[in-house]
């Protein structure tokens, strides 16, 4: 029952008009671009455009939760810096301004990955990996990693359920108060399950005659649509334009 409900996410039709490969490219270009972009203005523009892109995919509640997560992460980082300053003042004052650019970079990443995650079926991502014609030794682990996302989520649910049966309440309070017990109760069985799944799949791969020399059949792929071309052009112009503008101005 749990597995099927998890995999309903995979069954959900994509909400985006863009091909999954385009959405993967948007992620790749943005995540590479933000390494080179230094100015707050350029990062701000990119964050704003990526925000519009993310909002266009709906699921606003999930997006807000993701932003809150980023907010908490930065608040914790600032708190840690404050504590470090008490013991090690030489590192210098680091006010909120110092965190502004990294914060914008993370926002761009969150927005683009969010758009990819909520609008792609797992099977589409796997197909795209296949179409990209990557070597089998890269394609297989990458594809298996994605294939196991629903199973991993299901494992976490079942282990949490087992903890509840044994009388442990695996909420935030429990995790905070008993971190070592959580490792024993949740992380250890999860690791064992992951290892066992990996072992089973390795055996299945052997028995299907796959190895590093496997040459997969190339399947015919549909070309990019008009929206894919427009989106790719926009993201390239915006990212590389920002980098170029920074260098020139």
């Amino acid at each position, binding site marked *: 029952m749990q597995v099927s409900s998890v995999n309903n996410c995979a069954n959900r039709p994509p909400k985006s008009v863009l091909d999954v490969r385009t959405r993967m490219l948007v992620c790749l270009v943005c995540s590479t671009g933000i390494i080179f972009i230094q100015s707050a203005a350029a990062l701000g523009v990119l964050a704003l455009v990526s925000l519009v892109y993310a909002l266009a995919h709906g699921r606003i509640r999930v997006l807000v939760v993701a932003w809150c997560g980023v907010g908490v992460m930065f608040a914790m980082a600032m708190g840690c810096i404050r504590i470090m300053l008490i013991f090690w003042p030489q590192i210098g004052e680091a006010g909120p301004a110092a965190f502004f650019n990294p914060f914008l970079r993370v926002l761009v990443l969150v927005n683009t990955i969010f758009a990819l995650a909520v609008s792609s079926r797992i*099977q589409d991502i796997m197909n795209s990996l296949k179409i990209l014609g990557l070597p089998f030794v890269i394609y297989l682990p990458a594809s298996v990693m994605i294939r196991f996302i629903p199973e991993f989520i299901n494992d976490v649910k079942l282990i949490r359920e087992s903890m509840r*049966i044994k009388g442990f309440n695996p909420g935030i309070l429990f995790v905070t108060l008993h971190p070592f017990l959580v490792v024993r109760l949740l992380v250890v069985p999860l690791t064992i399950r992951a290892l066992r799944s990996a072992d*089973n799949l390795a055996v299945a791969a*052997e028995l*299907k005659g796959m190895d590093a020399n496997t040459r997969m059949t190339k399947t015919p792929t549909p070309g990019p649509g008009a929206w894919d071309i427009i989106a790719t052009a926009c993201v390239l112009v915006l990212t590389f334009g920002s980098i170029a503008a920074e260098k020139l101005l």
Partner: protein
Amino acid sequence: MIEFDHVTYTYPFQEKPALADISFSVSKAETVVCTGGSGSGKSTLIRLINGLIPHFHKGSLSGRVRVAGKETVHTPVKKLSSHVGTMFQNPESQFFALRVRDELKFALECQGQSVEKIEKITHQEAERFGISHLMDNMIFDLSQGEKQKIALAGIMCIAPDIVILDEPSANLDPQATRKLAGHLMDLKRRGVTLFIVDHRLYWLKDLVDKVLVLDQGRLACQGTFGLLQNSHLRKTLGLRQPVVFSPNLPDVMGAGSGQGLTDNGVHVNNLTFGYKKKPLLFQEASFELPPGQVIAVTGGNGTGKTTLARLLTGLLPLKTGIIRINGTPRSPKDLLTRSSIVLQNTDHQLHMKTVDRELAVAARNNPDRDDTVVDVTRLFGLEPFRLRHPQSLSGGQKQRLVIAAALVKSPDILILDEPTSGLDGTNMNMIARVMTDMAQKGCMVLVITHDLELMNLACDCALSMPLSHKEKN
């Protein structure tokens, strides 16, 4: 087709051989069933046939194994894989794709076959196994029986001479098991050699030509299916029955002490529940479960058996409805403390470093914790493993441990989800005995099972799913 000549194999870091002096042969298009108690070496035998031993699992091997005319020692697994297909007990663990069509194509794509050939073969096999209508479905949304068919069709796409099936009936209901037997019969007619490893034997009567019985790594005996009629042999080697009749259990409503006339037991009123974005599984269902009885919960996949178990133990909140135990309405939190549930996969339920610790943690709210743990450890034969890591135990031992951990809570409600799947006759008898003992002590034992033998042995009445109008108010 398969030839074993005085084969002895010992796993790395083990002193005792897993298989000793095994000799037998299987001809083309012959169907063989290999059975035996837990730990008798059945899985090792499979690994020797498909070449995982010695190529994947190292260790010490003597004697000669020939499969499809090739010595497995000198033939890589990749080469053997075009002759031997293996279906795992849990087919899910061998799927590489999420959609049926992609899974069937996968092995052929890895062989570099042309797109046209791939289309033709997958279409052909899908037709043969009657799964054409499922081609665009997600694999995980399918029933166990359908998953088995997809795994088999996937194997047959590469047209092997030999198909090995590891516990194929373990997760199937009787109807799906019959259908599987039909598909295997079809493969047999197509000239495929079948090597089946299973504890459940009744469904193989008309299919198999030869029976191999393993006992502690040795080939105890081989012969026709009639060999299994020997009750002494079955008892000595811990085998299951070769003939099983469908149990005629009374309906739970009739087995109780009257509809709502007594406060004893568990009363469920106006239960409504459905998962998000799914149709309701239960709509205003009302029924009562009598105490002191072992109740079998039966029905096809997806009818809500496990969901009902989760609701009765408080793991899931009710949308509407009331659950009363001995007349008192209980909240989900209350239910969780008063009940124990053993879910299907034991790996998720074992957390601690040792068997002792696992039981102690499960019993920590029991006032008689120490005595109960000692009693249960003895009852389940877990004494020799007290200091072992639970995850290092065998499948049967783990199953015993999770049931023991459920028992040490001294629950009012004990729910077991497919407790005998993949277990031999000895372990099944022991679990049946434990269930009956618990019921006699006044506990309400609910067992979700497809195992006809277990139902015959231990169950007093049945709750059939989906809940019919009879159970609804």
